[in-house]
C-alpha cells in the first residue's frame, strides 16, 4: 500500500514539476548546483566501475569464445553494444540511486521531520519548485553525460584486457574495428533514452519518499532503505519494458 502511495506521489511530483517549469529562470542556479553535486562527485566512481565492468565483460566473453575459431573478432561489438545499450545506463542508474537517490531522500526526509518543508509552505513557497524541480533537471542533465562516460570507460576497459590477456588472440585494432562496426547512433540513443527514464525514476522516487517521511531518525533511515529497494526494482522493471519497446 505504501509503495503504491510512493509511486502515486512520484507521478504527482512529476506533474507539479512540469507546472513549475515556468519558474525555471529563478531556479537555474539551484539546477546547476544539483547538477554539479550529482555529476562531479559521481564521475570518478562511475569511471572506476565502468573500466572494470568493460574489462570483466571482455575477459569472460573472450575466454568463452576462445574455443570458437574467429569468434573473438566480435569481442569489440559485444563489449560495445553491451555497455551502451545495457550496462552503461543500468550501472550508472544503480550508482546514482546509491549515491544521489539515498542522499536526496535523507535530506528531504530530515527537512520534513524538522518542519522545514512546513516552513516553506507557510511562506507560500512550493517545495516542488525549490526542492524537486532543480534536482529533476540536474538529474536529467547529468545522467546522459555519466552514461556516455561509463560507455567510453567500459570500452577502454575491454580494450585493455584485449591488449594484456594472452587467452584473447585479437589485437587492439580488431577490437576497435568490431566495436565501430556494430555500435551505431541508434544503439547509443537507446542507451541514453533509458538513462533519462532511469534518472527521472530515481529523482522522483527519492523525492517522493523523502517528502512523505514523518517522524525521526528511525523513519529517515527506513525511508533511505525504501528508496534504494524500490528504485532498484523499478529500474530493472522499467529496463525490461523499455528494452522491449526499443528493440
Amino acid at each position: 500500500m505504501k509503495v503504491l502511495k510512493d509511486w502515486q506521489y512520484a507521478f504527482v511530483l512529476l506533474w507539479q514539476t512540469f507546472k513549475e517549469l515556468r519558474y525555471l529562470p529563478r531556479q537555474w542556479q539551484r539546477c546547476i548546483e544539483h547538477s554539479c553535486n550529482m555529476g562531479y562527485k559521481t564521475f570518478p566512481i562511475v569511471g572506476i566501475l565502468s573500466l572494470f565492468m568493460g574489462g570483466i565483460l571482455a575477459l569472460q566473453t573472450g575466454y568463452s569464445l576462445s574455443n570458437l575459431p574467429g569468434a573473438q573478432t566480435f569481442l569489440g561489438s559485444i563489449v560495445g553494444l553491451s555497455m551502451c545499450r545495457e550496462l552503461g545506463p543500468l550501472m550508472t542508474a544503480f550508482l546514482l540511486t546509491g549515491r544521489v537517490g539515498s542522499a536526496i531522500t535523507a535530506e528531504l526526509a530530515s527537512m520534513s521531520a524538522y518542519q522545514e518543508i512546513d516552513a516553506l509552505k507557510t511562506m507560500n513557497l512550493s517545495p516542488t519548485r525549490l526542492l524537486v524541480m532543480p534536482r529533476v533537471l540536474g538529474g536529467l542533465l547529468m545522467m546522459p553525460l555519466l552514461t556516455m562516460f561509463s560507455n567510453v570507460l567500459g570500452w577502454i576497459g575491454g580494450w585493455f584486457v584485449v591488449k594484456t590477456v594472452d587467452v584473447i588472440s585479437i589485437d587492439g585494432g580488431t577490437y576497435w574495428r568490431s566495436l565501430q562496426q556494430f555500435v551505431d547512433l541508434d544503439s547509443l540513443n537507446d542507451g541514453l533514452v533509458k538513462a533519462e527514464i532511469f534518472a527521472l525514476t530515481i529523482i522522483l522516487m527519492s523525492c517522493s519518499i523523502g517528502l512523505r517521511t514523518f517522524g525521526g531518525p528511525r523513519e529517515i533511515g527506513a525511508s533511505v532503505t525504501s528508496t534504494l529497494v524500490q528504485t532498484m526494482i523499478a529500474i530493472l522493471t522499467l529496463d525490461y519494458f523499455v528494452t522491449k519497446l526499443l528493440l
Partner: protein
Amino acid sequence: MPIFDQHRKAPVSIKINGVCKAFGERIVLNQLNLEVNPGEIFVLMGPSGVGKSVFLKLLAGLDRPDAGHITINRTSLDRVKKTNKYVLGLVFQAGALFNSISVFDNLALYFREHALYDEAEIEKRIFQVLHMLNLQNTAFLMPSNLSGGMKKRVALARGLLMEPDVLLFDEPTSELDPMTAASIIELIGFVNKNLGMTTVIVSHDIILAKNIGTHIGVIQNGKIDEVYTAQTIMCAKNEYVKNFLNPTINLEHPNFLSLLS
C-alpha cells in the same frame, strides 16, 4: 527609515467554526469554535498531546480540518492560501530554519523567491530586523551554530519580515531559560503592540499568557469551552483549568508507592 509601516493594513479577525480533526480513531479537535479579534494576542493553552499544535497547523493551512471552517476577515482559509490575500507567518517551536543555508539566506528566501525587493532592499530590511532582535552578528552564521534562543529569535525575524497579517507561534518559550523566555515574551508583546498584527500563540507558559495574552483559552476534550483574560484565568471555576494552572505535587502518589511494594 523604519521598514514596517505601523498602519499599513488593518488588523484581521479569525473565526473558527465547528472545526473537527481526527487521526484514525483518535479525535483531537471536536467541534472547536473560537473568535480571535483583530490585533489581539490569543494564547491557547493545554497539557501536552491535546491538539494545540494540530490546531496551529490547521490555522496555518498546513493541514485541513475534517469538518468546520476557518475564516480570516470572512474569507475562507483555503481562499486566503490560494490568493495570498492575507499573509500568515508561523514561528515553529524549534525554529525550522533551513540548515543548509546561512541565517541571512534563511531570512532572504521569502523575498527572493517571491521577487519582492532587490538585493539592496532585502539586505537593509534583514539587518534592521536582526538589529532589532539583537542578532546582527549572526547573519552569516549557519543555523547549526546558533543557540536555542537565537534560533527562536531568527525564526521570529523570518516571521516578521514576511509582514504577516496573522502571526502564529508554536511554544515560543519552550526549552528556554527564564531570562531568554522573558526576552521572547517582550519581543512578541512589542511587535503586537507596535505593528498590530493578530497573534495566536500556543503555549504551556502561564507567565507568557498572563503578561501579553489579550485572551486565553484552554483546550479540553478537543474544544475550548471558555475564553479568559489574564485577570480572570487565575480565578477560573473550571476544575480542569484550575488543575492545569495549579497542579498539585503529590510525592506520595499511589502509583509511585506501588513500585516499592
